[in-house]
């Protein structure tokens, strides 16, 4: 269950402000693609265009194409709701449903669809929690509220919730920026396992993290504050960090700006 993403000529706007300009790239299935770049360069905005979450923001608007195995997400007959079922997302801050138990949080996506059997549901919940490396920590308290977990556990709960609906693609928007180093390590290990099954795109501020977890890395930049962000280059992670083809990438990675 993993799909290729082909983006061509994509721009995104907030009202009249253009946030990202004319981005084209390919994201390979069953691999981890990392987005890096200075703050405000539009990498999170770009990520949110990949499951049509950008248009949820008031004034959010998108031009261009995003092909998910030849199907354009922005075709007029495409339902954004089914896009988001196919392309899962994990957010910067862990956001379990505060009024639901751990079990219900993981089951939430399946229950929306209505078509499940009870024992099937608990199987999926267990499988997803195992998939998120959380099962052993929470199996004795599945009926406790999800908000009672630690930050790192909550984030893995959110990952379990996202993979429970078997998406094709998993988007992660700085999933570790609110976590301590040990929880971060747990999530990074998890990403390594998940890429066997999913296409993963991760936005990160942490270049070591990009180097550790990703197969390919895309560098975004903006010419000046207020200008739209652009894709500078995308390549194998090793190449980007060792021998980038654009000077700006090297400057950013070596810490000369950003």
């Amino acid at each position: 269950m993993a799909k290729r993403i082909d983006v061509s000529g994509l721009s995104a706007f907030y009202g009249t402000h253009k946030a990202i300009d004319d981005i084209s790239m390919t994201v390979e299935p069953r691999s981890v693609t990392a987005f890096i770049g200075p703050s405000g360069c539009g990498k999170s905005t770009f990520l949110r265009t990949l499951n049509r979450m950008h248009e949820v923001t008031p004034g959010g608007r998108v031009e261009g194409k995003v092909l998910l195995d030849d199907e354009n997400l922005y075709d007029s007959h495409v339902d954004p709701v089914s896009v988001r079922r196919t392309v899962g997302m994990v957010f910067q801050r862990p956001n379990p449903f505060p009024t639901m138990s751990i079990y219900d949080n993981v089951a939430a996506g399946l229950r929306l669809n209505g078509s499940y059997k009870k024992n099937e549901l608990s199987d999926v919940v267990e499988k997803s929690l195992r998939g998120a490396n959380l099962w052993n920590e929470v199996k004795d308290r599945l009926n406790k509220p999800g908000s009672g977990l630690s930050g790192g556990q909550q984030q893995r709960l959110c990952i379990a919730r996202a993979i429970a609906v078997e998406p094709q693609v998993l988007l992660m928007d700085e999933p570790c920026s609110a976590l301590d180093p040990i929880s971060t390590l747990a999530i990074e290990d998890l990403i390594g396992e998940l890429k066997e099954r999913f296409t993963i795109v991760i936005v990160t501020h942490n270049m070591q993290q990009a180097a550790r977890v990703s197969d390919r890395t895309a560098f975004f930049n903006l010419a000046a504050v207020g200008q739209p962000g652009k894709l500078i280059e995308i390549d194998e992670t090793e190449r980007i960090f060792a021998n980038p083809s654009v000077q700006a990438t090297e400057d950013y990675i070596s810490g000369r700006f950003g």
Partner: protein
Amino acid sequence: MSQATMTKDTAPTPAPVAPSLAGKRLPRWSPIGFGALSLALAVGVGLAADWQSKVQWGLIAAILFVVLTFIASSAVEGTRQAKDRVATSFVWVCFLLAIIPLASLLWVTVSRGLKVLDGYFLTHSMAGVPGFEVGGGVYHALIGTLEQVGLATLIAAPVGLLTAVYLVEYGKGTLAKAVTFFVDVMTGIPSIVAGLFLLSIMLMFNLQPSGFMGALALAILMVPVVVRSTEEMLKLVPNELREASLALGVPKWRTILKVVLPTAVGGITTGVMLAIARIAGETAPIMLLVFGSQLINTNPFDGAQSSLPFYIWEQYRVGSEASYDRAWAAALVLIAFVMILNLVARGIARWKAPKTGR
């Protein structure tokens, strides 16, 4: 090289058995189409059954619309989408339901009120005018309202302000908790109960009805509103300001008077004006405590007075066409008074907001 590099590994992924992204959707015009269809059907049914009330026609149309949408949507798009559409139409219907009474009330008040509202009406009392005849005016009631509301504000504004200052700047422990709780409780006191309280005092001490007694009852209703809004505003004043002033060696009471209150003055004014607007329309306490009068009485401390809301009640009770007209005209004056207070208050809030916001 700003283009994405081509990848080496272009092996096609095995075609997964995933649901297509493009769910079948109803065409975009479908809500309008169903709306027109159900309206037409409802009118047909209404005409056939000869129902007088258009409310029933509307109800039938609304029910038909929801049912049609649900059936069509669940057939084409699936149950989830159908539920979503039903929820959307429910929310829209709710909103329209709220607009109808407001529009109707304003329309009726304005159109019927303008019939007799003129300079004469505003400058004459009901002295010597029999209730069922045309003529007379609202001057004595205007005087009464202004004096009673003014007195109530003179009492309630300082008490409310000081209480809020106590709660925010000094209050802690049991007393502050009790005050907070009872301010909330006071907010919920029905105006007639506040009236009955002062009535029982009048009965105990054998006092005569006067504008002042009414003003006391209005003050009881006004204080909690002032406390609440002032408290909110004082809490918005950043602690850094207080610390800055205290660090200069300014005593606490002068800090509150010269730094805290002026910073929040816009919001406090808004709160007080909204509270005035609220009590200006109160009828029940006036009925019990001020008693009503047809004559101009400018002394709120002695003898019965009238007031705008009481005047409306009085004219309504007379029950003639002429008195109904006067009631609507007075209602128009009262609504205009309350609305202008509201608008000005909110204007002040908006105008002052940036200063208190930071």
